[in-house]
């Protein structure tokens, strides 16, 4: 019998406590910010806890490749766990003008294909570390939704491959290794 009335008391008091909390929150300042504010289009998401401007210091979002610096070493392609980077290179001729990356490293390879499929990318940042010239970077840019999945294939290479030389009959003799 005592329990029966205690139940009443428990129910009433706990409900009242909960309602007091929700009422307090009803008049508290809201935590959310609008994603794209019409009034201030330049404002980005501001964290409550992180000081302003620091939140995206290390953000790993969209990949970008500074092609001028790429020496075609294929390190990023090898390390990518999901194989979203495809690079093909060809040797630069000795006769061509020597060019250098920003850190002074000579560019011996011409990168004719540097494709990153951002729809496959897992944003693990592993490709960034081994790069000898720091040419592949993850940017804090996160608004890159697309309607067509094929648009996620970013082609960074600027150089065109030298057109293949006319086929020679000798080629048939070379056996192609299996696998």
């Amino acid at each position, binding site marked *: 019998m005592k329990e029966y009335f205690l139940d009443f008391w428990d129910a009433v008091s*706990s409900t009242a406590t909960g309602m007091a909390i929700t009422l307090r929150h009803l008049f508290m300042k809201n*935590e959310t910010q609008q994603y794209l504010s019409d009034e201030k289009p330049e404002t980005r998401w501001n964290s409550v*806890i992180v000081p302003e401007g*620091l939140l995206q*210091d290390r953000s*790993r979002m969209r990949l970008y490749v500074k092609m001028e610096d790429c020496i075609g070493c294929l390190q990023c392609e090898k390390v990518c766990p999901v194989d979203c980077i495809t690079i093909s290179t060809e040797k630069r001729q000795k006769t061509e003008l020597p060019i250098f990356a920003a850190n002074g490293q000579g560019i011996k390879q011409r990168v004719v294909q540097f494709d990153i499929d951002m729809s496959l990318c897992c944003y*693990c*940042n*592993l490709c960034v570390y081994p790069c000898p010239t720091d040419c592949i970077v993850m940017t804090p840019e996160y608004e890159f939704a697309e309607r067509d999945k094929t648009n996620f294939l970013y082609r960074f290479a600027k150089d065109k491959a030298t057109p293949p030389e006319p086929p020679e009959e000798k080629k048939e003799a070379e056996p192609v290794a299996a696998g």
Partner: protein
Amino acid sequence: MSTPRQYKDLEPDEAYAFKLEDLEEDEMILNMGPQHPSTHGVLRIELKTDGEIVKDAQPHIGYLHRNFEKHAENIDYQGIIPFTDRLDYVGSMGNSLSFAFAGEKLMGIEVNERVQSIRVLTAELQRIASHLLALGTYGLDIGAFTPFLHAFREREKVLDLFEWLCGARLLYNFNWIGGVSHDLPDQWTDRVKVFLDQFEPVIDELHNLLSYNKIFTKRTASIGIIPPELAIGYALTGPNLRGSGIKWDTRKEDPYCGYEKYAFDVPVGQGRFGPIGSCWDRYYVRVEEMRQSVRILRQAIEKLPPEGDVHETVPKRVKPKPGEVYARTEAPRGELGFYIVSDGGLIPMRVKARSPCFVAMSIFREIAKGEMIADMVAIIGSLDIVVGEIDR
């Protein structure tokens, strides 16, 4: 050689555990999931019901299978870590910590104190974030909407801290074999302190809003009871085990990352509103664990060595000697262990993950029998499963 049969090749009744012809007159098969609002992902549960009473319940798993273990046999050690993040995708820091720990054991690397402290900081913050999600969605399962968003509000702050630290909000790739990817930014620990100061009152508010609510205790304190013997029998770990009143925490029993340096308690279920080991006890253990995490974080910030290179012991290439290793850590959902066999190559020969959620799910049938349909949701929520970790 016959090709292995796929799920779609099964006969219609092979996909069901219960046969129509075995049903009694009043019984009905109810298929809960894989598309259901509260099966926490894509879990499918088959219920044999008699009205509102569940006579039997059979979980079907495998809808989120991503082939982690086989995949891990084909990539180098460093490349596996992003995949471990995706096992328990709301507690990524814990997963990669566990794998990195196993890798270090295999390589014989001793990380320096600063790395250990950073790992403790991130792991405990992740525990808070993960428990907040678990508690919030648990409230949602029971029907209370508001605690869910209050919990997410706090979780968002932890994710902000993580983004500031390593650039990602959910899947961090932060713990490497031999170190961590980024050193702490300036002011980071100060802001963590600010977060902790404002977070502690939130725990009390959550208690008042949800934990001690009469409806909530009525709903959860008498269902899904796991007696201590059963919990040990099914090898439960983490809050699910501690909810049954057993004081076992890998951080205490088998310390790693210097957890022995920190003073903290292991909260256990006390059966305050009903028998020990009920859903409410497991819920309560999680809330109290957040309090302990706050304690650990405060100590870790104080003891953080000011100097130290976080990349000091990161090997150029991870190429362990042949051998095998098992390492376990206390992830938010329980004991997460990685068993790695190396043949001396650049890629592991075998990787096995011992995931706490899979083990917790195996007990479901045992404790679900005889409860009501509404309780199914409560029991799943209290076990705090993440389907990504069950299926792997």
